[in-house]
């Protein structure tokens, strides 16, 4: 479905990442109802993960 709206692979990838991140946040918000708090940990993990992956691509394309 998304392929029809986004022709650029980079834009498509970013939209897919946003949707997946939203799904993960919804799960964490559902867990909040049971007094389980993982919001901060998840957000930090996602931000670190995406930044580290993009840096590893930049590093490998330099070499």
């Amino acid at each position: 479905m998304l392929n029809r709206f986004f022709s650029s692979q980079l834009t498509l990838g970013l939209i897919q990442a946003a949707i997946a991140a939203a799904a993960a946040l919804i799960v964490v918000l559902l867990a909040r109802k049971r007094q389980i708090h993982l919001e901060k940990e998840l957000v930090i993990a996602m931000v670190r993960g995406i930044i580290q992956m993009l840096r590893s691509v930049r590093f490998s394309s330099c070499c």
Partner: protein
Amino acid sequence: MITAAGATSARRAKGIPDAFRVSAWSIACGAGSVIAVMTWLGVIDSAITSLVPVGSMLIANAMNTNGLALNRLRSDVLSHVGEIETALALGAGSENSVSPYVQASFEASLIPAIDSLRSLGIVWIPGLMAGMLLSGARPIYAAIYQFVVLTMIFASSGLTALVSTLLIRGRIFTPAQQLLLQPGR
């Protein structure tokens, strides 16, 4: 795949009645719903050559998370039988008497998924990205999609653990709210 995953992770819940059914339903709800929604949205390509490998990753990780959650809950309950029965004797409901252990088992079961996300690209560069690069995908798209898959793994594992711990806490008590899990049984 879901049946096999349920049977494998149910082994971690020895002594808990209905562990296989709970595991299978949890994995079906958790991983199944994430796979269905993400395929519909186009995050996972609906071609069999993409759906099966990516779907199997989500199911496998949901299976591991479910096994960890059940195993941790079982061992915590067995270690705290005295506290749980004291709470029951003082009038606490069965759900309240085990709620701290349910929370702990949920959090512990998600440690691998969170740490995988946190260490992505710095501790490990995953095979999915390597495969995409070998098949000619743009490196930056491969990197982003690797993040997408790991985030979906977290979502499916989290949902599986939520459903599993919700269903299993009722199974460890009799209808009269007596604790079924006892050391030595």
